[in-house]
């Protein structure tokens, strides 16, 4: 490591902020907010600097850092990003200051803890995107869980926050613990076969596990990530978590946390288990397509704006999964781009819902109507993000969805056809919601006195707006740096799939025994790497 450790600094800057805030008096709320904001901004600036140092033509990991952590086990503190993770990192850092700003007046209770939780959450998310060691990844993955739990549980909606919080945690932890087992299994099998015990992701990419084992391990990873994505039918935690979480929680959850699942697939599940992921592609595609249509339909009949947006996430992320498993340039690029897009537009939508919730303390669609009249600026922004969410050309959502659908259509036309119908339903539920909230006459007298957005709120949405338009108009800024990494990803996975097929590895006789037969090993058996 002969360069400035960008990624470590990037990842742990918020932690410093968190520690600093711990020393503040709990009553000096504004000061703490400023500290948090400045650390988040600093983080964003660092990421911008990093972006300008990023070599968009190189297909490997950049800004790599590698420090041995637990030597005997092959665990290292290894960070690095490529075109795939670059923009997810940027998205995370972009949202950092935004969420702090967005919570400025929203959160008045236990501000100190709130800011600390947000900052630690930021550390976890950045760590997940940057880590290239399975162990490290798992650590960050779990670290993320706790602040999110607190965000939902402490600052959530009084009614059902506890239920939603614990549901979120349990759902996630079931998946991630099974993933831990699979990580260990992979580590051991690779170590046993190659003689090198390591959690290094890039090294494990080169190990081809037996098909049976791949199947089970992929399934474990699949479960963990599918829950996080969330894919149908593992999605039911999401509406609850979104609805009960405070605005900022929903924003982070939607914009970044859900991407952990999809990112997990692209970074871990597919390249580590190329054959299993190929064999199970149809399962993933089917669930994605069901998710797209199902999410849209259920979103259509929601009574609560946040729930509606939550279900729309299920639908949108179905697209992401679909494109990824198409395994061609358009599909995968579209999928990554759509991750960003979803982060921007759904994040913005949650912010918008939060702004109106702050004014009216309800999110029921029926309570609103005719808001356009009293809040014209709000109406315009709301409209733009709604359109972005339904994939209007010229805004970001379209580019992603189009690439995904093209990519999918090339290889799985029927899936693409069904998925494309989701585009129709997206228009239905979003516009219907928009109409019921914003149009019509003001029937509820409480809505008459609503104030339009203040400058802080506009400032919160403005960066998102810029990117929404930018990606829509000139997506190449984002597609170009991705391209080499995506090409490499596709090439590697396909090569390994072909290699496995040429090697005559059988297709699935599915049995439970993955590792060595459990005929009891002699007690004195030495583990290979502990001499």
């Amino acid at each position, binding site marked *: 490591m002969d360069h400035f450790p960008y990624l470590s600094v990037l990842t742990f800057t918020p932690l410093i902020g968190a520690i600093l805030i711990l020393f503040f008096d709990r009553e000096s709320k504004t000061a703490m907010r400023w500290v948090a904001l400045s650390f988040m901004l600093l983080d964003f600036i660092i990421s911008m600097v990093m972006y300008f140092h990023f070599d968009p033509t190189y297909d490997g990991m950049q800004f790599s850092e590698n420090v041995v*952590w*637990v*030597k*005997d*086990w092959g665990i290292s503190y290894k960070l690095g990003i490529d075109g795939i993770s670059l923009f997810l990192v940027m998205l995370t850092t972009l949202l950092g200051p935004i969420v702090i700003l967005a919570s400025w007046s929203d959160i008045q209770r*236990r501000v100190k*803890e709130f800011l600390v939780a947000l900052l630690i959450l930021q550390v976890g998310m950045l760590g997940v995107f940057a880590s290239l060691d399975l162990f490290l990844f*798992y*650590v960050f993955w*779990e*670290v993320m*869980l*706790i602040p999110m*739990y*607190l965000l939902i*549980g*402490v600052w959530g909606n009084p009614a059902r*926050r*506890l239920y939603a*919080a*614990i549901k979120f*945690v*349990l759902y996630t*932890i*079931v998946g991630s*613990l*099974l993933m*831990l*087992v699979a990580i*260990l*299994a992979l*580590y*051991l099998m690779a170590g046993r076969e190659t003689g090198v015990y390591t959690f290094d992701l890039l090294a494990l990419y080169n190990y081809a596990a037996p098909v049976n084992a791949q199947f089970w391990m992929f399934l474990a990873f699949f479960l963990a990530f599918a829950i996080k994505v969330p894919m149908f039918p593992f999605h039911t935690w999401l509406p609850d978590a979104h609805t009960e979480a405070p605005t900022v929680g929903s924003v982070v959850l939607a914009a970044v946390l859900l991407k952990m699942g999809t990112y997990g697939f692209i970074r871990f599940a597919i390249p580590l288990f190329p054959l299993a992921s190929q064999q199970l592609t149809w399962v993933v595609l089917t669930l994605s397509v069901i998710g797209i249509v199902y999410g849209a339909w259920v979103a259509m009949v929601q009574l609560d704006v946040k729930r509606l947006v939550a279900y729309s996430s299920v639908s949108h992320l179905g697209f992401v999964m679909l494109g990824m498993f198409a395994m061609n340039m358009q599909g995968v690029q579209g999928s990554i781009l759509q991750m960003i897009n979803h982060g921007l537009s759904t994040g913005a939508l949650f912010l918008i819902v939060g702004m109106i919730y702050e004014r009216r303390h309800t999110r029921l669609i029926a309570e609103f109507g005719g808001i356009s009249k009293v809040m014209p600026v709000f109406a315009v922004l709301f409209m733009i993000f709604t359109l972005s969410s339904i994939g209007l050309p010229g805004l970001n959502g379209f580019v992603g969805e189009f690439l995904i659908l093209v990519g999918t259509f090339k290889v799985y036309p029927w899936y693409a056809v069904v998925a494309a119908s989701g585009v129709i339903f997206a228009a239905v539920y979003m516009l219907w919601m928009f109409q019921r909230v914003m149009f019509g006459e003001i029937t509820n007298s409480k809505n008459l006195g609503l104030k339009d957005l203040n400058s802080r709120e506009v400032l919160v949405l403005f960066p998102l707006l810029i990117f929404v338009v930018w990606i829509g108009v000139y997506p190449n800024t984002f597609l170009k740096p991705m391209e080499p990494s995506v090409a490499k990803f596709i090439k590697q996975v396909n090569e390994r799939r072909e290699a496995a097929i040429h090697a005559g590895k059988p297709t699935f006789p599915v049995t*439970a*025994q*993955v*590792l*060595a*037969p*459990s*005929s*009891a*090993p*002699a*007690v*004195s*058996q*030495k*583990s290979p790497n*502990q001499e």
Partner: protein
Amino acid sequence: MTPIQLPDINIWGILPALIPGLAGMVIMCVGLFMKKRVLGASMIIAIAAVFLSVIANGGMPTEPKTYFSGLFVLDSFTWFFNLLILLATGLTIPVAGRYLHEEGLEQFEFFVLLLFSACGMMFMIAGGHLLMIFLGLETLSIAIYVLTGYLPRSAVSKEAALKYVILGGFSSAVFMYGVALIYGTVGSASLPAILQAFQAGKPGITGMAGMLLMLVGFGFKTAIVPFHMWTPDVYEGAPTPLTGYMSVAVKAAAFGAFIRVFLGALPSMYPAWSQVLWVISVATMILGNFAALRQTNIKRMLAYSSIAHAGYILIGMIAGNKMGTAGMLYYLLAYTFTNLGAFAVVALVGSKGEANTYLDDYRGLGRNHPIIAMTLSLFLFSLAGIPPTAGFVGKFMVFRAALEAGYVWLVVIAALTSAASVFYYFRVIMKMYMEEPVQMPQRLQFGPGALIVLLITACTVLYIGILPTTYINMSLQSVQLFH
């Protein structure tokens, strides 16, 4: 008549174990003559004894040595457990001192018995002969029985002691019956002899029955299903610092002896006992975790959690490889700090007369005592096995070992039950942070000692969770002789 040839007496070797016993006697003498501040004095002596003992324990011995005609084995394994027991004792003493003071029990006997039990544990761990192990076990048991019933005005404390003594006696008898059978079929009760005889396959079915009966004895002390039934009641009824002590030190010592006997002397029977332990481990994890879901008393909840953890630790034993055994040691180390910390908080929050031991008493603790709540959360995360805490590394090690040995389903079950465990651990956090306090609980009485204990345990839980290498290597070296 031939003159008696004394055996190879080596006081230095047994010094770490001897010091607590001697210190106990010193406290008795001092206590008899002091009228005031007897509690503080005995506390200081006890802590000094622990420090002395740690010094006497020294660095990790490279070669195993035996003293007293093979009855006392001083090796890295002994060393590790000595350290563990001393740590547990040392960390319990300040908490107990604060607790006893609050309860108005200004007496020295608590520390005497505590030190005697530590002494018994260390002799048990070092035992190279079943007789030593039995005597050590009984010494610690007798002391712990008494300590359980130590609270003079508490009915539950007496009840716990009663249950413990009956069941403990019962299991001791069973254990001794097993020892008798082993002795009879091997011709000796020394561990090397047992190792040889079993490798030669001589003891036959009777010897194996002896082995299983011993397993019952160890199973009782380590609180594994179905020998766990005493645990919730005794943990609930015992004075809180003692509960913490029991859950780590006694469990650790029992596991140590368990490992020494089963891996040190009976490895040839691994196929038989590992199958038995597989079933037991699964049952233990399931029962411990699921029963804990319904608890309203935090001590009882932690008791069930401690049962569950015994199940996880057993996984390392079932794996039967070096990583597994080392994993057990590491797990015990992590668990020692974690659980002692947790019980220290429980003792603090419990206040006088253990008035606040229900989960509902923790409502709003995050608001009223943020530091305490934060440390308790940390311990709970560690118990739940969430990185980057020590508990995670422990689980990671035993899981890894079991997978290495091919026990996939065992690990999957362990993972799923541990997911269930998250529910009840997080429920405490929920109570602390997410529920409004019904009434402000009375100011908690902190003592500097208890705070230092919290600080040490919390920092260590994080430290060995983030930088575990040294401790992993330490535990790996400690189990060198079994593999």
